[in-house]
């Protein structure tokens, strides 16, 4: 199954959210007019970034150690290389992306160097008003904390403002309430909620009750089910 699209309409926060969810291994390829970038993911975290002239070069090497050898990088240098290359990657706003799951074989000593949650929050702080509307399109939305939110929050290196917003999420407060409680501006709150959702720190409120706009009985519902089955 594909994970592909255009960065203009599906940004890095959105992509990282998908890769983080199942802690995916694989290669994210960003194709631009004169530049192609391969981002290597291990268990949902970025472990390496390389630029290539042609996309097919990326798929010549299935072993990560071979990639490093070709690039002349020692494993001990990986953190510094990643830190040096991340700003350029994260500043990209245009280009086509595609993620190939699996494919690359990592040795066991390749570990996460920078938590993806930290990068998600970093990027979320820069989202435009138009982008935040994609997830936080309604001030009446209610969120609740995920069961493991504390662990995720540690990895995300939250600012004091973000901690305040997290504290006000209780499964009852609407977005508008959070703005009033924290006295932060709407864009900051929406950016933070966007990042929290992408990190998996919060989730939509799970509704215990749902409204059915008709007096349905079990008997009538069974009739409808039988009818649909028989069509």
């Amino acid at each position, binding site marked *: *199954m*594909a*994970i*592909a*699209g*255009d960065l203009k*309409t*599906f940004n890095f926060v*959105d992509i990282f*959210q*998908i890769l983080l*969810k*199942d802690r995916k291994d694989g290669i994210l390829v960003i194709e631009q007019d004169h530049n192609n970038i391969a981002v290597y993911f291990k268990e949902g975290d970025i472990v390496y970034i390389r630029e290539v002239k042609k996309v097919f070069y990326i798929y010549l090497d299935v072993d990560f150690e071979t990639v490093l050898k070709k690039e002349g990088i020692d494993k001990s240098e990986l953190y510094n290389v990643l830190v040096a290359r991340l700003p350029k990657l994260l500043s990209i706003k245009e280009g086509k992306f595609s993620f190939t799951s699996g494919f690359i074989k990592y040795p066991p000593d390749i570990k996460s160097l920078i938590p993806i949650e930290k990068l998600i929050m970093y990027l979320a702080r820069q989202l435009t008003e138009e982008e935040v*509307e*994609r*997830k936080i*399109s*309604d001030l*009446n*939305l209610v969120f609740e904390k995920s069961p493991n939110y504390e662990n995720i929050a540690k990895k995300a290196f939250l600012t004091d403002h973000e901690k305040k917003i997290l504290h006000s999420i209780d499964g009852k407060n609407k977005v508008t309430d959070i703005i009033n409680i924290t006295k932060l501006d709407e864009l900051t709150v929406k950016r933070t909620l966007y990042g929290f*959702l992408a990190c998996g720190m919060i*989730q*939509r409120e*799970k*509704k215990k*009750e*749902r*409204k*059915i*706009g*008709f007096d*349905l*009985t*079990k008997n*009538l*519902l069974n*009739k*409808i*089910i039988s*009818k*649909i*089955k028989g*069509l």
Partner: protein
Amino acid sequence: MAEKKIKIVVAGPYAAGKTQFINTISEIETVKTEARTTKAGEKEKKDHTTVAMDFGRIKIDDEHTLYLFGTPGQARFDFMWDILGKGMVGLVVLVDSTDPVTFHEARRIINFFEARYPAPYVVGANKQDLKGAWSPEDIRTALDLGEEIKVIPLVATDKENVKKVLLELLEEISKYV
């Protein structure tokens, strides 16, 4: 005896396959309110688009009829969501699995209905037969949906697929009856 109308709303972004979904299952020819597509970015996808609503009908018994109402996909027609949301028993949100741009619009639709008309709902991941289709699980994550919300793969031209989506929705509705 006066007919009692039971309403299911089929919502989703532009060109997600809502009219096709209703066409596939309706016992009558779907009643359409279409206009020629003129906007750039839309006319490349299809010639006509729903401007008020589509509806299809399934007669349940002498007293009851199930209506499937399709909403217009474009945000400029979102006033129709309010009209159609009132009194619905359930909601099907369709997405085009091959086009992640439409996931944002689908999320906006879900946010709207969840905040105002929180009826049971399911998501139909349409166009699963096409190259480049995202998996239902990745679509679930992209839409910020929990495991409790069903994301069902489908091809809206396939009657059995459409039946499955409706039956899954009815199963959700049964939890609250």
